[in-house]
């Protein structure tokens, strides 16, 4: 008997028993779809976490003074060791540094016409925008000339723009920061919340020279330095280099007096979190596969057992064992294959739906598709083949009499 002939028999048999075929397929469809959807959602969640971390700049090093370095707590600002000279030294003397910028953090009342907002104000170099990969959605950034001239300009985050300028275009408007007028140059592209849940768009960014001269009190000149490395790989070496450099520049200090943090540490923490999520995902996938697999196994076993008599009849009228087995394997392969394809479509569709609903970037990965389809097909085919083989090898009379 030719393979083609058996394929035809198998297809006819599948079409003849549409309900049984569909139910058997359903096991595979659900198994595959569940795994793909679960993994896609999990991957999406993982991606969100990683993106948020990346949005903070993962090749960034933060340098600040350690105010609690001795038992005697000092007034803020007095303990500050860092200077603009340190920034320039880091930028010019160390290898692997892309940008470095001082950061003065302050906060205060923001005012435009009748609207008030209390916001965080940052004084930075124009390089800061490159370090943090910030850009404007409207207007423009400020430049190094603004920093040199201590121009009273700023760019604002979306939250500030929404609250101070609910109905007007803020570009070119003059806003008062602690009563000092600043011209708004641009509105930043929204970044959303960071991993700690802080709103990264509730921010005013101005040249550090202006902030230093106009906004900071004499005893509140707390400065930190933000540095970006040329590559994430340099980060650890760079951290050590910065620490050595600062100790050289400030004789008599120890390493404890500086805090040199890199975002990679945060990134590493986040990647540990995401590893945990990966394990969680794998467990979900494993359980989905197991449950799906048991479902497939059951329906295959039942549908083949139900057909023992059919096997007997086919054998009695002259079907060889090989013919019968081949027929059942082809049926199982067809069911698994079609079910697998429908399952993929359904799984991808469901993942997209969830992705749209949650506004996540859902990623259906190739390996989740291969894993679920491969596993389901293997189970489907094995449990289509195994009972059929048993039935074909069984005594013909017993198979015929099987009820």
């Amino acid at each position, binding site marked *: 008997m030719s393979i083609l002939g058996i394929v035809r028999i198998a297809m006819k048999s599948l079409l003849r028993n549409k309900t049984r075929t569909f139910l058997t397929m359903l096991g595979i469809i659900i198994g595959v779809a569940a795994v793909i959807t679960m993994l896609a959602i999990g991957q999406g969640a993982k991606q969100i976490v990683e993106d948020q971390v990346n949005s903070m700049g993962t090749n960034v090093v933060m340098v600040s003074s350690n105010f609690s370095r001795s038992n005697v707590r000092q007034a803020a600002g007095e303990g500050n060791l860092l200077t603009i000279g340190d920034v320039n030294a880091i930028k010019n003397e160390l290898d692997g540094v892309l940008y470095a910028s001082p950061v003065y953090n302050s906060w205060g009342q923001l005012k435009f016409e009748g609207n008030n907002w209390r916001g965080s104000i940052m004084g930075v170099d124009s390089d800061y925008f490159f370090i943090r990969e910030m850009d404007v959605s409207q207007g423009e950034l400020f430049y190094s000339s603004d920093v040199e001239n201590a121009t009273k300009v700023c760019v604002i985050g979306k939250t500030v723009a929404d609250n101070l300028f609910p109905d007007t275009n803020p570009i070119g408007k003059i806003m008062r920061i602690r009563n000092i007028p600043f011209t708004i140059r641009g509105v930043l592209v929204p970044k959303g919340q960071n991993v700690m849940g802080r709103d990264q768009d509730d921010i005013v960014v101005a040249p550090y020279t202006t902030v230093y001269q106009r906004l900071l009190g004499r005893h509140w000149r707390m400065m930190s330095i933000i540095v970006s490395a040329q590559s994430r790989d340099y980060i650890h070496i760079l951290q050590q280099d910065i620490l050595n450099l600062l100790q050289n520049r400030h004789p008599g200090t120890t390493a404890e007096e500086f805090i040199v943090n890199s975002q990679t540490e945060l990134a590493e923490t986040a990647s540990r979190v995401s590893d945990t999520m990966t394990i969680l995902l794998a467990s979900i996938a494993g359980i989905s596969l197991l449950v799906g697999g048991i479902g497939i196994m059951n329906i295959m076993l039942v549908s083949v057992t139900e057909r023992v008599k059919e096997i007997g009849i086919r054998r009695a*009228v*002259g079907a060889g064992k090989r013919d019968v087995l081949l027929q059942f394997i082809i049926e199982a392969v067809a069911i698994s294959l079609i079910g697998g394809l429908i399952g993929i479509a359904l799984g991808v569709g469901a993942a997209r739906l969830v992705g749209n609903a949650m506004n996540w970037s859902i990623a259906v990965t190739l390996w989740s598709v291969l894993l679920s389809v491969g596993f389901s097909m293997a189970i489907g085919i094995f449990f289509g083949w195994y009972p059929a083989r048993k039935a074909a090898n069984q005594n013909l009379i017993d198979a015929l009499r099987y009820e």
Partner: protein
Amino acid sequence: MNDILLTTKSLSKVYEMGDIRVHALRHIDLEVIKGDFIAIMGASGSGKTTFMNLLGCLDKASSGEYILDGISVHDMDDEKLTQIRNQKIGYVFQSFYLLPRTTAIENVELPLLYCKKCSLHERHQRAMDALKTVGIEDRAKHFPNQLSGGQQQRVAIARAIVNNPSFILADEPTGNLDTRTSIEVMAVLQELHAQGKTVIMVTHEPDIAQYAHRHITFRDGKLIRDKENSSPKDAKTDLANLPKISEEEDE
């Protein structure tokens, strides 16, 4: 003689169930001539069905010899037995054994699917011819559950003859049928016999056996009687004499 269809020599079958050995058949010697119509009779447990299973190559004998068309079947492997079942034997079972949700003609085509070199068209043609022979070609596209018992058994007979086998083996072909349809089925078998087919039929009903030409009786696994039926009844005549109720007992 040249027209011997099959011979059994000391054919025995022993079932072993744990420690107990059940002798289902003890040393059966039988010769069947081509073109005969045999009824194998006996009470249940007499071994007649076991004997039929052996003749039909559905089961293997424990000892003894079985020669079909001059070939010894005893030593054949599974593949060869499958071929024999496909090409030399046509089965008719008590409960029809038609594939469900499969049209009559597709059921009849079944044996042809498993034999080599048979085109789609030829298959269809031969199946249709077989259905015509048993007089049920108008139900070719019906499913078994749309057919009456008598019609289903006719489809089964058509399936048995479609591959032009050496003989037809019928196991209680009328066991599930009422009197009228039983006689109808016997008329079909007699018609096939008249066309030159060999028919071996197992039955426990003496009435049905009367349509056969040779009676073989089993008891306790032994062949106790083998005699010619000098005056077999004619099913068509009986059918004509039956009081008419309706044309066909459709449901």
